[in-house]
């Protein structure tokens, strides 16, 4: 793929991001209307190793490569999905229905509980949610004999994770950093989290509606550790947030729509995801992604085969296909998140050498050491956290 072609894809994705709220709304409607996938393919069961005619893949929005001039990934508009079909004859019914871990879990919970097929062969929850599904026994164990690339190319940092100690259930799809997006033209650049609360940014700060990202960063800013959240440190972070909202410092809490505020200069600083800032920067070079001095958050979304999936073997083939460095590179050049596949950097250099050294896709060790993953807590504590954070979003303390 030529550089021009790749840039074209990015420009297109950028246009899509500009309409982030629109697309989010559309995806929201799609998510509401879809309780499972639309097609019902089946693969022959037993020892027969024949790829199915189609598999159903539920993923987040803007999370796989898409052709120039197209904004929705399908088996026809994504190079990686097309190549899979060319090789195995399997059409990937790719649907961008994951908008929120909790919400999506709600849609697959009933069939899993009843021991039925969810309609999905691959889903990509964030690690904390993936762990919940694995712990409930609702994930299929990989047959690694079908997955040599996954075994060979899984980045070391993902081996032996608490959520899946022997890598039997989860195949990382992308990792993302949460930090600050700062418009360096409109505000003096800063690296301390407290810079967000500077009076000159009053009404120009936007935060995410994601608990683990927003509260995690505020906790780090307060000197607390979000990898071991406690009620006192959480309450302190909520108090900080409420104060900054009530004073008018924080303009809005937004989901994907935060990108639009940064693009239109309605916000000069935001709690932001690395990949988004990378894309916006192409058009708005003054926008910088910063992992604050106090630290940033890190999360991974993982491919998982839900229990009872009709096409487990073919799903394993897709996962393994993605773990080929040249395929991962195609996806990565577009999505600009952190790639879990060894050897992808070399492959991505062939597409565009600048991308191979892009710190958003390949952060250095020093940056990585400052990233925290939101810690596991008891169900009671998590329910308490959820309720407190919902209160912030609902404006209860306003």
């Amino acid at each position, binding site marked *: 793929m030529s550089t021009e072609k790749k840039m074209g894809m990015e420009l297109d994705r950028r246009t899509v991001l500009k309409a982030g709220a629109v697309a989010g*709304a559309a995806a929201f409607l799609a998510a509401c209307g879809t309780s499972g996938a639309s097609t019902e393919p089946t693969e022959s069961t037993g020892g027969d190793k024949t790829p199915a005619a189609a598999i159903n893949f539920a993923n987040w929005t803007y999370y796989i490569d898409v052709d120039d001039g197209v904004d929705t990934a399908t088996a026809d508009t994504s190079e990686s999905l097309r190549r899979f079909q060319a090789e195995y004859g399997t059409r990937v019914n790719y649907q961008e229905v994951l908008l929120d871990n909790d919400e999506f879990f709600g849609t697959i919970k009933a069939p899993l509980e009843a021991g039925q097929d969810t309609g999905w062969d691959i889903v990509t929850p964030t690690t904390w949610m993936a762990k919940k599904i694995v712990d409930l026994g609702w994930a299929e164990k990989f047959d690694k004999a079908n997955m040599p690339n996954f075994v060979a190319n899984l980045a070391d940092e993902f081996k032996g994770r608490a959520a899946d100690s022997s890598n039997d259930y989860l195949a990382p799809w992308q990792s993302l950093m949460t930090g600050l997006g700062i418009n360096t033209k409109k505000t003096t650049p800063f690296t301390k989290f407290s810079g967000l609360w500077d009076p000159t940014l009053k009404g120009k700060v936007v935060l995410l509606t994601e608990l683990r990202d927003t509260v995690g960063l505020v906790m780090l800013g307060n000197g607390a550790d979000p990898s071991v959240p406690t009620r006192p440190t959480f309450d302190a972070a909520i108090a900080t947030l409420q104060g900054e*909202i*009530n004073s008018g410092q924080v303009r809005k809490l937004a989901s994907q729509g935060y990108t639009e505020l940064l693009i*239109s*200069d*309605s916000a000069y600083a935001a709690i932001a995801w690395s990949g988004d800032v990378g894309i916006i920067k192409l058009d708005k070079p003054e926008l910088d992604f910063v992992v604050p001095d106090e630290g940033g958050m890190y999360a991974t979304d993982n491919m998982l085969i839900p229990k009872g999936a009709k096409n487990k073997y073919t799903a394993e083939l897709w996962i393994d296909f993605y773990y080929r460095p040249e395929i991962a590179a195609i996806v990565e050049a577009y999505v600009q998140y952190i790639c879990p596949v060894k050897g992808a950097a070399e492959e991505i250099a062939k597409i565009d050498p600048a991308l191979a050294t892009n710190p958003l896709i390949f952060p250095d060790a020093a940056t990585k050491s400052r990233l925290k993953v939101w810690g596991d807590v008891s169900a009671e504590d998590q329910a308490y956290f959820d309720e407190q954070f*919902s209160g*912030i979003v609902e*404006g209860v303390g306003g």
Partner: protein
Amino acid sequence: MGMIRRHPALVPLLLLLPGLVWLVSFYLAPNIQMFASSFWSGTLESGFSFSFSNWTNYTDALGKYQQQYARSIQYGFAATLICFAIAFPLAYFIAFKAGRARSALLFLVVAPFFTSYLLRTIGWRTILGDDSIILGPLKAAGLVDPAARFLDTPFAVIAGIAYNFVPFMILPIYVSLEKIDRRLLEAAQDLYATSWGAFRRVTLPLAMPGIFAGSLLTFIPAIGDFINAELLGNPNTTMVGNVIQRQFLVDRDYPTAAALSFMLMVLILAGVALYGRLLGTDELTSKAI
């Protein structure tokens, strides 16, 4: 057909049947379900159980979200007033003065509906933005404080609601004005009424059914709206619709969400009943509909 001829009494029943089936399946049944779930306790993970002792769901929800209820009423009321202020003169103009442009103007009133409600609201984000086509030039000319903003404020939410629902006010008022027998106005003039007098004593009373219907068609959806507060507001402009949406979809606290929805419905019904009483009679309602 023979049966209908033999039993003519069946005809009204048969005519009502589709509507009844619709109402029972999509209004009554969900409402009973919602009412029942407002007495649940538990979580989605552990399962829900019903008990009348869970009536505290109502008091808890009201205690926690009274501000959101109050705000919904305020925003709904303000938006309805704005709609009326825009709609009445416009409807009057279309009905009495527009002549052959009438159809074209009515089409323009309805035209925004050809675009999705969400997209229209998102469009306002661009129009109202801090450096947008409205605020940008004003700031550049020094007429407005550079830090001023319209987007993500209560004004933007109210303006958004008013914008989205104004056709629902215009159309019923237009219909009632258009129906007015012009000879009544001539008669008033013959009897030496001033034009203001004729307007006040003939036109306005005859327009009341339209005003009544229009204000209900505006106020009811406005009070339950959450899109405008979500897209054009800030964390402290949330309305009760936003809370219900989040409780249902994100927190999955169905009992609280159901209690909030039920209270909102009762509140609206009581408000409408009172309004009908104040404005006059059942006759008004029947005329309006």
